[in-house]
């Protein structure tokens, strides 16, 4: 079995183990955190499929462990993932950062909420990344964030939304196709998730 196939299988097993896990004990908590760290070692990875599978598992862990890990967990994880978004190198772990943030936002919105400003500050970087997969991932991250903001945020909501909208408008005036594409992606997410008033229109894939 190749190393990559092996990793895929390990992730599949982890998914099943997480399904079984029922009662919350100190023991299971420790295991969960161990799992988390194992899975995180696969982000970044050179194989996109493995990264995607790893991020799904990570999301599952975050969902189960959200309350167990507590506030301190997000305080550490979100800035670390944001760090991955930055950096200029072509092979930067940007995609991994996007995936981690996306899963955390989807699966642990209550705790993610307080860090959402950080994400909105930096989301433009992956949204304009030259790689399509990074942009698409960032679009999904944006969708998850918008969903959180529209549900939970009262004051800062329009601030975030108008900033994102402004960036999208500016992007459409640029000449690089990847920036235009990123802006169109932003528009789509804003139209789908950005407003409270949506006549006969709801997202079809509930985010949580």
């Amino acid at each position, binding site marked *: 079995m190749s190393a990559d196939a092996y990793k895929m299988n390990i992730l599949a097993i982890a998914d099943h183990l997480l399904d079984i896990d029922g009662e919350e004990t100190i023991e299971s908590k420790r295991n969960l955190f161990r799992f988390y760290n194992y899975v995180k070692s696969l982000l970044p990875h050179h194989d996109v*499929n493995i990264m*995607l599978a790893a991020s*799904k598992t990570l999301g599952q862990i975050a969902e189960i462990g959200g309350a167990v890990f507590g506030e301190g967990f997000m305080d550490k994880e979100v800035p670390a993932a944001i760090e991955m978004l930055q950096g200029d190198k072509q092979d930067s772990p940007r995609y991994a950062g996007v995936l981690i943030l996306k899963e955390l936002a989807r699966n642990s919105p209550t705790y993610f909420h307080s860090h959402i400003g950080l994400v909105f500050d930096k989301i433009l970087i992956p949204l304009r990344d030259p790689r*399509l*997969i990074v942009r*698409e*991932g960032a679009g*999904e991250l944006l969708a998850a964030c918008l969903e959180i903001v529209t549900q939970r945020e009262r004051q800062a909501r329009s601030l975030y*939304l108008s900033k994102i*909208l402004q960036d999208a*408008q500016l992007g*459409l005036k640029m000449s690089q*196709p*990847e920036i*235009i*594409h990123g802006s*169109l*992606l932003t*528009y*789509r997410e*804003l*139209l*789908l998730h*950005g*407003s409270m*008033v*949506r*006549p*006969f*229109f*709801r*997202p*079809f*894939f509930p985010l949580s």
Partner: protein
Amino acid sequence: MKETFLDTADQILGFRSSRDNLVKKMVITLIPTLAAYDTQTFAEHFLHKAMAHLLTQLEKPNERSFGKFHSDSLCYTHQFRYSRDSVHCYWSHCFCGRERHEAIPGFRHDADQGRTSKQRVRVLVTSVITSHCWSQEEKFAFRGTDISMCRDASIGSWSEFNQIVARSAGLDVCLWIE
């Protein structure tokens, strides 16, 4: 967004003949999103433009697949329920209104050609309603399956295929159109 909808939609549709294929595809994906967001305004101002664009897109053999990705994609039951309104709106405007001949190049409503037009319309309508959110995971799941095989095979394996996709997308039911 509500206040700027006209400008936004105009700007977005302005990219429909962009030189970049990705941007072009994205515009097609955005058409139903725009239509659903504010159906009335969309129907008033952009419907013809959008429909004409989709039809020209279908005429081009090498770019037909842009729309086809969506028409081949799956239509989920909930999605269908919501989008019936906007589809109905497309139909009534473009296919029953008297402007249809100007609006749609090559469209005939004659009885003998009815079938082909209808088929085209069906593909088109599907492409209009199904452009929806394939998230990355679903796209991956979708790519992993041999679609050409499923299309040629019998209904039995189609429904099986639907089940597979429904399962991988975490849904109970999944409806395949066209």
